[in-house]
């Protein structure tokens, strides 16, 4: 990992850094949620974020996505401030709950980001794929006109992913997106997400509390420690891509999972 890369280097393009945090602190009143977090997120990589509850996993995503401000320190996305990156739609967010608008069909939900700012003449990036092609990409062709309550939890989350991709984000922030789904659906969506990642080249920061999910998806696992939330270790997962479900039964996978479990216990 090019941990020495600076914001300036990212702006000129080499080595490419998607997001950069420098001595970032997040405080809620007197409570320190994140302490002195410094990290360069490599462009195009798949990061999973793991840690005990209260370690600030979600807070870190919210910090990067400009939902909450840093108390001190610097956070930048592709060399820009988080606010500038948000206005330019350089990143998208997938919540744990699909957060679809219940009165809109699947297709209309995917189209929502394109409608926001259109009348104000805001220039936003648009994916080469049309909203209905994005629904195809997440395996929902034929369900364009379904309302969210007519879809299963897994399908709703896939609509949310298609919606996140419609503005062609360079960085995709995912906050336990599959946490509420059953095991089978989760496996299926994990594979689909890996496929999307490889096709689009988007950088992904993926929060999870499942060790197998963290190992299976991530090229790198960011292990956070709690009280206060801080970066404990960055673990490289040197398993080859493309990954298949049966990878989970290999000794290498088990070794990584065991290592992470040990780390987690000492966090």
């Amino acid at each position, binding site marked *: 990992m090019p941990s020495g890369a600076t914001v300036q280097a990212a702006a000129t393009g080499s080595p490419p850094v998607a997001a950069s945090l420098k001595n970032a602190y997040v405080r809620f009143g007197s409570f320190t949620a994140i302490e002195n977090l410094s990290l360069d997120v490599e462009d195009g990589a798949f990061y999973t974020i793991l840690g005990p509850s209260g370690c600030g996993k979600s807070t870190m995503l919210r910090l990067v996505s400009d*939902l909450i401000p840093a108390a001190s320190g610097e956070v930048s996305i592709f060399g820009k401030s988080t606010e500038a990156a948000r206005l330019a*739609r350089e990143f998208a967010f997938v919540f744990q709950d699909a957060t679809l608008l219940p009165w809109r069909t699947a297709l209309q939900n995917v189209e929502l980001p394109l409608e*926001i700012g259109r009348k104000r003449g805001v220039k936003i990036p648009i994916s080469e794929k049309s909203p209905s092609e994005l629904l195809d990409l997440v395996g929902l062709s034929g369900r364009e006109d379904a309302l969210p309550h007519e879809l299963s939890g*897994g399908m709703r989350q896939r609509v949310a992913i298609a919606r996140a991709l419609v503005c062609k984000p360079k960085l995709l922030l995912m906050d336990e997106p599959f946490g509420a789904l059953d095991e089978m659906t989760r496996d299926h969506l994990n594979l689909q997400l890996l496929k999307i990642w490889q096709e689009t080249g988007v950088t992904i920061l993926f929060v999870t509390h499942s060790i197998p999910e963290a190992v299976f998806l991530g090229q790198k696992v960011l292990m956070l420690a709690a009280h206060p939330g801080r970066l404990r270790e960055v673990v490289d997962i040197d398993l080859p891509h493309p990954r298949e479900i049966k990878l989970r039964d290999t000794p290498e996978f088990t070794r990584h999972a065991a290592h992470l479990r040990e780390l987690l216990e000492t966090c």
Partner: protein
Amino acid sequence: MTMVDKANPGDVENDETTEKALIAEQKFERRRKIESIAIPIGTVICLLIIWQIGVRLFGVPTYIAPAPSDVAEKLVSQFPILLANFWPTLLEAVLGFITGNLAAVFIAIAFVHSKSAEKAFFPIAVFINTIPILAIAPILALIFGPGLTTKVVIAAMICFFPTLVNMVRGLQSVSPQALELARILSASKSEIFWKIRLPSSLPFLFSALKIAATTCVIGAIVGEWIGADYGLGALILDSMFNYRSPLLYATVFMSSGLSVLLFAIVSVAERRIIRWHT
């Protein structure tokens, strides 16, 4: 429909049994529907028969309590008069419904966008709501005169408060995550309003409109009691003072029919507009 997530290869052999189960379910569903209509209608018919027999059996004078057959006879023979008095009340009720609800919706929007507006005016709205409509009606009659306006204002006032409260709740019912999504998309205040807040509030608005659909008729009739030469309310007073009980009952029946009509219109509109579950 949820089977896409978990492909089930054993489905083929089960086709026949599922079809049978489906037909059985449809039959059951149809029976349930027929029952849900037939039972209340049967009950009403039984009650009417008991009423008819009771009145005749005990020789109750018609001016105290007419038999259903007397009422039905008047409903047919006096129908032109009933209808002539139906239209003014309908007009007053509908105009009151529209103005009262529109005012409530706009004020709710103002409340949601400005906390100080809410602090300033909400107590006043509560205070006005606590005044019994019958008590305030004479005041309104003095202000607005004996014409249409008084009736419309009374009908509007009676609709106003439930819609205001529901609409404020509806506009605030947006989930925090939907607002975070809006923030990530850098949505403007007006985009959040039109694309998220307003649609979220519609189920709340419609439950208030269903209340208003029946109360606006009460408002119009109360308005007519204060002073009117025509309308169902005027006909009720007139037939009461003249001991024309069958006509009185027939008029009451028409009034309730008006409420049912307005309620049905709002319900149909609701079903058309709100196709999502909340």
